[in-house]
């Protein structure tokens, strides 16, 4: 049987500055009818470029040196733009990473679904509208009629991704390229999308290329898995066996980086001294208005305590109020209720004096947003050092450079990085700088707000290792906000589960699988993809 998609010795360069950069080298792969090929690799391994090459949507500086890309018996490389328009959507569909940016914000959902169906299936508008209703109902969306009349910002990310998947399948292509379709979604939503993918695939028998950096996830959805490293395919194996018997070193690295709940990284027990206690903390965002009921709070009367040196995980889906807790504890959001820090009562953001702000530090999810692009790493790190005067005693006062160097080495970066700019660093390095900035204040509590979410699995593993060794050195406690259940089960002493602004469970780590947990906690644990084999 002929392959749906077939690449032979495909090589591609990007022209960057002086010399070309090899992005894909001699890629050969086949996808059989009805087969799902998983493609994994770190960021920069070339897996997304491969998707763009297949979709024939390469940037202007791409140069294809050799090889062929065939869809059935069509040579995609030889097609003129007009013919490509007839291939895209009709014969190859694509589902993107971030559903919220893949839809035009100024057109209704219905308009965007039907225009695709009109264009790719040759339907009339009315027939396309009816088909769209049917498709949306088929992907378990409630009230498709109302949904079709909404604008993208009025529906959730999970709903948007369902709509995009329904549209892609509705065009009846031979192949669908999935580019990390669950990465931008939270665990439970992502798990449901994967179930949907499995069901539609079984029903339609469409072939798929499924791209992800998460080997655990890919091994669950794909028939075969291909591993990429630096533009080369280094291993191809059946999904069932790749976890058990990884052949290539890169695959072994990816396997090792996958967090497994049974593989605990923290073995100590925290002390008994309560460092910070939150009592009935509620956060409200919108302004109060006359004659208008107040908006529901982002978090409602949440109470917990963190002991010195403890790692407390906060988990929950997006919008559950996890980050609002972080914002309240750092004085970034107004809150009602109270906080006790080291026995001192803190009633509002105004009570947070220098000592509190020094002791409670935060690391944000996106280092791109939290590092000032106009300051060098050295300048960024010098701010907390000067502000809190926390340079170590054995250094002469004012010897900032030495102190910055010490901080950088503490987060395993070369001291010479002090003169670099944030844009010269990789994502993982930037996050290390953000961590160094937090530790410059010699904090006793560091709030980590989804700090590994934008990172690859392998980079994530090294950041976690760093955090654990920093904790060993300084004795800092962590409030670790994440939606990666497997990761938090490796490191947390206790886990707080949040849902719709409320704390539904606060459990010691060894009790999360017990029978008495909240049903939502059970769902959350079940939704986390654990590796096959």
């Amino acid at each position: 049987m002929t392959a749906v998609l077939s690449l032979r010795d495909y090589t591609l360069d990007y022209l960057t500055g002086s010399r070309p950069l090899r992005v894909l080298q001699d890629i050969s792969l086949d996808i059989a009818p009805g087969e799902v090929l998983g493609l994994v690799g770190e960021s920069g391994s070339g897996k997304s470029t491969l998707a763009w090459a297949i979709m024939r949507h390469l940037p202007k500086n791409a140069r294809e040196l050799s090889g062929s890309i065939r869809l059935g018996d069509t040579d995609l490389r030889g097609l003129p733009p007009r013919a490509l328009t007839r291939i895209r959507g009709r014969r190859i569909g694509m589902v993107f990473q971030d559903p919220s940016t893949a839809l035009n914000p100024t057109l209704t959902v219905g308009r965007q679904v039907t225009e695709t169906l009109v264009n790719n299936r040759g339907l009339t508008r009315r027939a396309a509208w009816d088909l769209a209703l049917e498709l949306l109902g088929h992907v378990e969306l409630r009230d498709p009629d109302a949904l079709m009349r909404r604008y993208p910002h009025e529906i959730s990310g999970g709903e948007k991704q369902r709509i995009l998947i329904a549209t892609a399948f509705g065009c009846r292509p031979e192949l669908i390229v999935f580019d990390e379709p669950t990465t931008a979604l939270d665990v439970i939503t992502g798990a449901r999308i994967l179930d949907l993918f499995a069901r539609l695939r079984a029903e339609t028998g469409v072939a798929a290329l499924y791209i992800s950096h998460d080997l655990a996830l890919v091994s669950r959805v794909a028939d075969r898995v291909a591993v990429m490293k630096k533009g080369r395919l280094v291993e191809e194996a059946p999904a069932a066996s790749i976890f058990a018997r990884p052949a290539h070193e890169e695959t072994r690295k990816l396997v090792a980086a996958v967090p497994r709940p049974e593989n605990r990284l923290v073995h100590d027990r925290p002390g008994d001294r309560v460092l910070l206690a939150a009592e009935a903390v509620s956060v409200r965002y919108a302004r109060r208005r006359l004659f208008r009921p107040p908006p529901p709070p982002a978090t409602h009367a949440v109470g917990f305590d963190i002991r010195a040196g403890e790692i407390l995980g906060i988990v929950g889906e997006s919008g559950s109020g996890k980050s609002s807790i972080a914002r309240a504890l750092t004085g970034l959001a107004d809150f009602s209720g109270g906080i006790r820090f080291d026995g001192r009562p803190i009633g509002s953001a105004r009570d947070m004096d220098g000592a509190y702000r020094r002791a409670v530090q935060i690391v944000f999810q996106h280092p791109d947003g939290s590092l000032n692009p106009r300051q060098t790493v050295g300048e960024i790190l010098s701010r907390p050092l000067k502000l809190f005067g926390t340079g170590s005693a054995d250094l002469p006062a004012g010897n900032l450079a030495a102190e910055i160097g010490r901080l950088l080495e503490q987060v395993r970066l070369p001291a010479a990085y002090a003169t670099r700019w944030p844009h010269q660093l990789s994502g993982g390095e930037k996050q290390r700088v953000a961590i160094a900035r937090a530790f410059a204040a010699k904090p006793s509590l560091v709030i980590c707000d989804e700090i590994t979410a934008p990172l690859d699995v392998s980079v994530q593993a090294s950041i976690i290792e760093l955090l654990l060794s920093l904790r060993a050195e300084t004795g800092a406690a962590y409030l670790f906000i994440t939606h990666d259940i497997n990761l938090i089960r490796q490191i947390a002493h206790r886990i707080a589960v949040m849902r719709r602004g409320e704390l539904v469970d606060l459990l010691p780590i060894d009790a999360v699988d017990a029978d008495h947990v909240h049903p939502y906690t059970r769902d959350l644990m079940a939704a986390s993809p654990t590796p096959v084999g």
Partner: protein
Amino acid sequence: MSVSWLLRRLALILYTVFIVSVLVFGITQALPADAAVTLLGENATAEALNAIRERLGLGDPIWWQYLRWVGHAATGDFGLSMRTGQPVGPEMLTALGRSLLLAVAAILVMLVIAVPLGMLAAVRQGKAADMATGLISYLGVSFPEFVTATLLAMLLADSLQWLPATGYVSPLEDFGGAVRHLALPVLTASLILVAHVARMVRSETLDVLHSDYIRAARLKGLPERTVLVRHALRNALLPVVTIVALDVGYLLGGIIVIEEIFAIPGIGRQLMVAVTARDLPSIQAGALIMSATYAVANTLADVAYAVLDKRIRYD
């Protein structure tokens, strides 16, 4: 967009107009012009001056004079012109009508030229069409309006004799004549605006064309025309709405030069005449009407914004 938002915006317009009225009244009071002297001339007798001061209430306290003026202005009565003796209100509103006609026509012509030009430049980024648009834009902004106006008048009115060089005809009386008389001033005003709006449309379109949803639209197989017209244009036009609202302000103020050159009795020209003649009621009325028009134009722009982009909700 809620009713309460609209009401609040309306209140804001009134507030703006109130502030302006205080400023306008204060400034005209501070001017060295004595209304009585202006009216009767330098050689008037002291008794005559006192009599007219008495009649106009110039001896009353300032705040009382202000309240009296605002109270009358609210009913459309801005007093009598010191120059012509005619009621100022109707005269200024008629003049505003002529200026608005000129401004709206100029904006429409500008949009018809600038939007396709900007999009073309964006689609052909770095190619000849883009360069040409850039050059035209730079020339457009570089020439002050009196140069553009003079050049156009020399070409179209003097050399080719296609259009009348000056004057104004009401479209209600003679539509064809009005169009011919408005053509030159409208062209001058729109050419200046085309320059920066085309550049704005170009950069916005470029931004939009690089967005994920445009990539998604292309990759789901939509033809390029649909991608550009249905998906890119609307989003690229959003910021242009704000610019157009600001341009209304520019046109009402900056149009003075154009009205002067082409002898159009619009509000700018009336205001100039009033200032030269120290015609206080006309100055007050003109300034107040112009600022109110500006405030209304900006509110309309915000409304248009919400209509175009459903993510923007005023509540």
